[in-house]
């Protein structure tokens, strides 16, 4: 899609969104209690992309745009955006009459400050999303002109309240952003105002009476409850104490049961396409048993991805078919690659290792390896145990290691002291935002979490990644990513396993909360209780 076409779609979507909303008559009032798991450390969504912060932050802070379930841009703080012919000047026309929760007006200076001083500096992904933004001009209070070094089409996919929340300049300016008080006393422009944080129990947000969108929000109060025990969370959902639980706060097995047994409880996999999570194995390509790409390809060939989805995640997920998620197919950036069989082929994998000269010893073992598992619960442990069995069948004797989160992060992303590592990454709404960090030589950043821990470095690939980042033409871009996927299917520094489908479990009493592709990371301004 050409950028100009893209823009007209944006405008049309805006028209539909406004027109459609007026026709509905929703009941106002009531409290929405939902699960936040685990308790967030702060509410500084501009510093951390941590999941629980994402559940609360976008209710308090707005972004410039939101994205509907088809991925189309929906105006929020920006009413429209114009991209110049050369793609290097992006002009945002900001909404008028918006105020912060403390009464101060929201202006283009806030946008300038947020992007240049906050997101580009302290946000985990901001430096990537806004890499090309050299400066922002503010000709008047409601216009922000982004001056880019190169075209950056992916930037327009990173403007949601979760990914790039707009923060108040007057409360942050001149302070150390990371330790500013705003983190625990958030002041945004969003539909809900922060009221109370009872540590260990809940965070309460109340309706923002002067929200810019007429008649919104419908709900008077939002309470995010913290319940550490999984069975208790499921019971709370079952009893109707909580109405909404996203990101598998209620485990798949319980979600499937509740969906079946309870008329008023439903599940959905919508609301995660912008997150785009991918389960995968990272390999140490510099040391240990997996320095040869043949072995990595053999492992990818042996694993029965569909079996893992069916048994461990109760059918929710899609087998990976490439380094890029099939969710990118909509933008032409995905193609099925070899060595990604959905159901696994042990014989072929054995053959590959035989041909490469890896002999089995008398115990049928070709090599030994240590397998680190992401310490995020038993699903991953089960997954690791399954893979351990499969690799045993192709002569790779692996030992499992399951540590606490800080130790594991340090081992993989700081010390590189691992052979293979079970993990999942968010591929996000564009490969530039979520995938490049995995493979680029410049992403071998010792001590930074969730980047290129394989230490895979390929000058040819780096050049393609750079080209893919700047290419404004969709067709050319598709061709570039085709090449990238081919290289990655051959070298496989990372073996993708399956596209995770997170489940949102909700009480059917809650309506109107499902219109954004940001899902649980959206504002809930349109949500109401029936």
């Amino acid at each position, binding site marked *: 899609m050409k950028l100009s076409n893209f823009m007209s779609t944006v405008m049309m979507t805006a028209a539909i969104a406004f027109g459609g909303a007026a026709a509905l008559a929703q009941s106002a009032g009531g409290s929405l209690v939902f699960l936040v798991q685990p308790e967030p450390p702060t509410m500084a969504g501009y510093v951390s992309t941590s999941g629980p912060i994402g559940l609360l932050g976008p209710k308090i802070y707005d972004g410039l745009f939101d994205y509907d379930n088809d991925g189309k841009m929906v105006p929020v703080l920006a009413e429209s955006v114009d991209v110049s012919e050369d793609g290097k000047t992006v002009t945002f026309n900001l909404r008028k009459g918006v105020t912060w929760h403390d009464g101060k007006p929201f202006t283009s200076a806030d946008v300038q400050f947020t992007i240049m001083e906050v997101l580009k500096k302290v946000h985990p992904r901001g430096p990537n999303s806004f890499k090309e933004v050299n400066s922002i001009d503010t000709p008047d209070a409601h216009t922000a002109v982004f001056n880019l070094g190169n075209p950056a089409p992916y930037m327009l996919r990173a403007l949601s309240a979760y990914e790039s929340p707009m923060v108040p300049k007057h409360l942050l300016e001149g302070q150390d952003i990371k330790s500013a008080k705003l983190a625990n006393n958030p002041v945004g422009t969003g539909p809900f105002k922060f009221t109370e944080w009872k540590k260990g129990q809940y965070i309460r947000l109340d309706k923002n009476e002067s929200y810019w969108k007429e008649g919104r929000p419908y709900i008077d109060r939002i309470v995010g409850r913290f319940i550490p025990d999984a069975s208790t969370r499921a019971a709370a959902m079952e009893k109707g104490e909580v109405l909404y639980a996203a990101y598998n706060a209620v485990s798949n097995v319980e979600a499937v049961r509740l969906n079946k047994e309870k008329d008023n409880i439903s599940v959905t996999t919508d609301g995660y396409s912008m997150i785009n999570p991918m389960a995968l194995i990272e390999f140490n390509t510099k040391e240990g048993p997996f320095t040869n790409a043949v072995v990595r390809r053999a492992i990818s060939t042996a694993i029965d991805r569909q079996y893992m989805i069916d048994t461990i995640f109760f059918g929710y997920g899609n087998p990976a078919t490439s380094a890029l998620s099939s969710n990118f197919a909509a933008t032409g950036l995905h193609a099925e690659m070899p060595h990604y069989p959905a159901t696994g082929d042990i014989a072929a994998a054995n053959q590959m290792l035989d041909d490469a000269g890896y002999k089995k010893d008398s115990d049928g073992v070709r090599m030994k390896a240590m397998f680190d598992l992401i310490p995020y619960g038993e699903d991953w442990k089960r997954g690791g*145990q399954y893979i351990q069995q499969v690799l045993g069948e192709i002569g790779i004797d692996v030992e499992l290691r399951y540590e606490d989160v800080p130790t594991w992060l340090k081992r993989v992303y700081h010390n590189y002291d691992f052979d293979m590592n079970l993990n999942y990454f968010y591929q996000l709404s564009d490969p530039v935002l979520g995938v490049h960090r995995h493979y680029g030589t410049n992403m071998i950043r010792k001590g930074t979490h969730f980047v290129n821990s394989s230490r895979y470095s390929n000058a040819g690939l780096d050049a393609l990644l750079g080209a893919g980042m700047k290419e404004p033409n969709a067709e050319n871009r598709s061709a570039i990513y085709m090449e990238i996927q081919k290289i990655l299917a051959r070298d496989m520094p990372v073996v993708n396993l399956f596209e995770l489908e997170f489940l949102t479990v909700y009480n059917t009493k809650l309506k109107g909360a499902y219109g954004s592709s940001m899902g649980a990371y959206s504002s809930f301004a349109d949500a109401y209780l029936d």
Partner: protein
Amino acid sequence: MNSFWNRFSRNKSAVLGLFILGLVVFMASIAGLIYPDDPFLYSRFPLSGPGVNGFLLGSDSIGRDVASGIAHGAKTSLLIGLIATLAAVFIGVIFGAFAGYYGGLVDDVLMRITEVFQTIPSFVFAILLVAIMKPSIESVVIAITVVSWPAVARLVRGEFLALKNREFVQACHTLGMGDVRIMMAEILPNCLSPIIVIGSLMVATAILIESGLAFLGLGDPNVMSWGFQISDGRSMLRVAWWICTFPGIAILITVLAINLVGEGLNDALNPRLRERN
């Protein structure tokens, strides 16, 4: 030996305990024969109920045989219980023996050290130790040993205090025997009975601690154990009750059996009860 058995068998529940324990040991020893496959081996039949698809006690979420897990887990539980107990008794006896025999400053130092360990709640301490080391079968054994030995040290110290001034010990002194020889060859055999009793009960505690650790996800992910099975199946209790129910029963009856045997040993070895006959 005969009289010992007579006294032991007078306690009917102790005999029952011994019988059950024998069954568990038997099951552990033939686990590899009846279930030659790895207990972690997945299958195409996840969440089959007991008796369905050829699974005697059902299968778990990735189709692993619960019965095979219990049989192989018995080996793990018993082995951990036994090794941890032996190690704890060994350390406890040394600490207790020296503290009780020498008294004074040695006693003070050793007992203060023991108390440091005793003041920390044992299960919390075990969790801490395993979390610091990486979860593995060795770290679990070490953790259980570290939290178990102080009780033995206390007991042995008391026994040594009581025995060290008795005539037979005095006689050894006059004969010119060395301290270590007196401790190990003369006093220790005389306080063996309470050590055996406390040791047998410690095996049961060790099995419970191991299960608890595995339940909290701190077990060795490479080794099948009952605690692991329960922790794995807990979240599916409403859907597949059998995954954690059967290992739970296994823990219950094994620990019960060991406790009954311990009680029987206590009866049989207690000299005061002996005189009553």
